[in-house]
């Protein structure tokens, strides 16, 4: 694995291998010294053009637990504020010769561009409405720990699917692992033709009881340039997962951050069925496994070391 750009690039066996690796990193987390020297001397750069708590903190901690050196750049407060382009920013970071660049960006395909510009292994930590593969891996990991194999399990993905990269990546990953997926939300928030990805689509929570797992999505108000829902209250009336709708045997997941009282009621967030805290804990070990897979398990030695300079970004000058 040279990059992790999309969950679709991974087979079931490759996903299993990463999750098995994550299990052994979970053991490292139970030691007195929760750190291993695996990536000593390597540099990991994180580049976040969008707000993030979980993804950025877990990638950063994962890099540190593996003894890598870490440079983290957030768009706000960096030269991006002064108008530096993505390409120039990547060229700047590349001067530190990072082994991995972790990037989140509001535009789909940004991670692929960075992969083309840089020699580093690139991890897509979310690109617009496109993909969020590390989230899908950690969610499969969380579910696998709770209920074993996903084969034949029924998972409902509920909410703002249209704006959700998590929905897309998770749909692909859950399907690859053999689960049966139903996507549910108001028609305006379900992309047309979604059935082609191999899932059922419904616009009502009436049959929610058949689900083994309910995966709620955040209503992404920051991506909505027009009104997709009449009002938050109306949305909540029809699509909120609350104690009435969630059965006692169903597991609840959410990628966070939660709009309390919109897609989830407070009682279910804090209920024992909620795996939200487990998802965050899984994020750390799964991201350690991703970094390990990219840097330690791969054949780094055969990667083009320098002869590839033609494809590197040429300096574009014009200091701000």
């Amino acid at each position: 694995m040279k990059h992790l750009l999309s969950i679709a690039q991974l087979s079931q066996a490759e996903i299993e291998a990463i999750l098995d690796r994550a299990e052994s990193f979970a053991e490292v987390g139970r030691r007195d010294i929760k750190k291993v020297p695996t990536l000593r001397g390597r540099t990991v750069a994180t580049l976040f053009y969008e707000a993030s708590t979980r993804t950025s903190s877990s990638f950063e901690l994962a890099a540190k637990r593996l003894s890598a050196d870490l440079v983290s750049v957030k768009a706000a407060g960096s030269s991006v504020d002064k108008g530096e382009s993505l390409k120039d920013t990547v060229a700047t970071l590349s001067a530190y010769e990072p082994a991995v660049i972790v990037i989140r960006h509001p535009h789909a395909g940004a991670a692929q561009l960075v992969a083309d510009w840089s020699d580093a292994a690139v991890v897509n930590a979310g690109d617009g409405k496109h993909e969020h593969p590390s989230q899908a891996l950690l969610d499969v990991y969380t579910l696998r720990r709770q209920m074993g194999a996903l084969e034949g399990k029924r998972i409902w993905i509920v909410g703002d699917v249209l704006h959700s990269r998590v929905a897309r990546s998770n749909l692909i990953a859950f399907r690859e692992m053999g689960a049966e997926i139903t996507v549910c939300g108001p028609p305006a928030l379900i992309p047309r033709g979604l059935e082609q990805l191999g899932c059922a689509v419904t616009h009502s929570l009436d049959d929610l009881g058949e689900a083994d797992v309910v995966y709620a999505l955040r209503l992404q108000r920051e991506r909505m340039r027009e009104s997709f829902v009449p009002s938050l209250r109306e949305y909540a009336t029809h699509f909120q997962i609350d104690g009435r709708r969630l059965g006692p045997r169903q597991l609840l997941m959410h990628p966070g951050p939660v709009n309390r009282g919109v897609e989830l009621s407070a009682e279910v967030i804090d209920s024992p069925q909620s795996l939200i805290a487990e998802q965050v804990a899984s994020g750390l070990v799964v991201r350690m496994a991703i970094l390990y897979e990219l840097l330690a398990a791969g054949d780094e030695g055969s990667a083009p070391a320098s002869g590839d300079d033609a494809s590197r970004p040429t300096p574009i000058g014009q200091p701000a």
Partner: protein
Amino acid sequence: MSETVVLAHDDLRRTLRRIAHEIAEKNPDPGSLAIVGIHTRGALLARRLHALLAELTGAELPIGDLDISFYRDDLGAKSPADQPVVHASHIDFDIAGQTVVLIDDVLYTGRTVRAAIDALFDYGRPQRVQLAVLCDRGHRELPIRPDYVGKNLPTSREQRVNVRLEELDGADEVTISAAVEVGA
């Protein structure tokens, strides 16, 4: 493909019994003794030594196993297919103040043992670390010396030492295969 048996079934078992006696002799207080095997075959040998030591001393010693993949100094140097399978380590007891006997099947360059000592220290600070190996084949690249040796095997670097254990390979034996097979 020529293989010479250097330790047959009974020899291997006798050798382990002797190592167990030596461990018990050198560590008269079993209360502070612990056994840790290095994956994969070292962990199996550790289980056997643990049983033998229970017979000898009457004490149930703490036992654990270590996977050293995260501590290797050759990560990335191998192709993915050659990468070892990573097992989780299991050390569920406090090693602080203990005498820990590390167990491995073959001692060669010493790099695995170096990595195992590093890994062990992430669990706490043992009072003393000893090393028991079934075979010492020489060619050390680090200043590491075993405390207990089953058999010294003078080998060339081209030869291969194969340790087979019933739990994993269906037979108990140690063999040396001559040089690397070329094609045939």
